[in-house]
């Protein structure tokens, strides 16, 4: 993802993120990446 990569608090499990998205009325931003983690 572009810019400020280290500042975002990433999740690594889509299903858990979808559950969180449903409860918080947000969307999931799914980033397929090859950047260093």
């Amino acid at each position, binding site marked *: *993802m*572009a*810019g*400020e990569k280290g*500042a*975002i*608090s*990433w*999740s*690594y*499990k*889509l299903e858990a*993120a*979808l559950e*969180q*998205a*449903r409860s*918080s*009325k*947000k*969307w*999931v*931003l*799914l*980033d*397929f*990446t*090859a*950047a260093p*983690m």
Partner: protein
Amino acid sequence: MVAFVSENFVPVRVHVREQADEFKRLGERYGAQWTPTILLINPAGEERYRIEGFLPTEDFLAQLSLGLAHDAFAKSNFAEAERRFADIVERYPDTEAAAEALYWAGVARYKATDDPSALAETARQFKKRYQKSSWAKKASVWDRDEGSAATARQ
């Protein structure tokens, strides 16, 4: 960018090598063949918008905003869609997304009001900015008269 992402999304990262199994599973599910590929996924798990390839921060934020605006439009929330599209033009005027947003802001206003002058006004705006964009070409058909605008609604 962090604030915008946090306010609107639950961010999930899948690494092509370090999470190879997960990448294979989700890559196949969503058809991700390249990195970076960024998907906006609704709570039902449905992809609603896709960004492929690296973008500078401003362009990236504009594209994320475009995804949210298009979703409002798809749900027939035309007033919200117009507001979101217009906000992109105002906040990120130098991005490629801005021309697309200007186009769709006009369409959303037209859909909300059923007033073809919204399209004609959008075409006039494209004579002042983003003249070389494909969106200016698409909007040019609205500049003739209201009859042309009515044709465009079909």
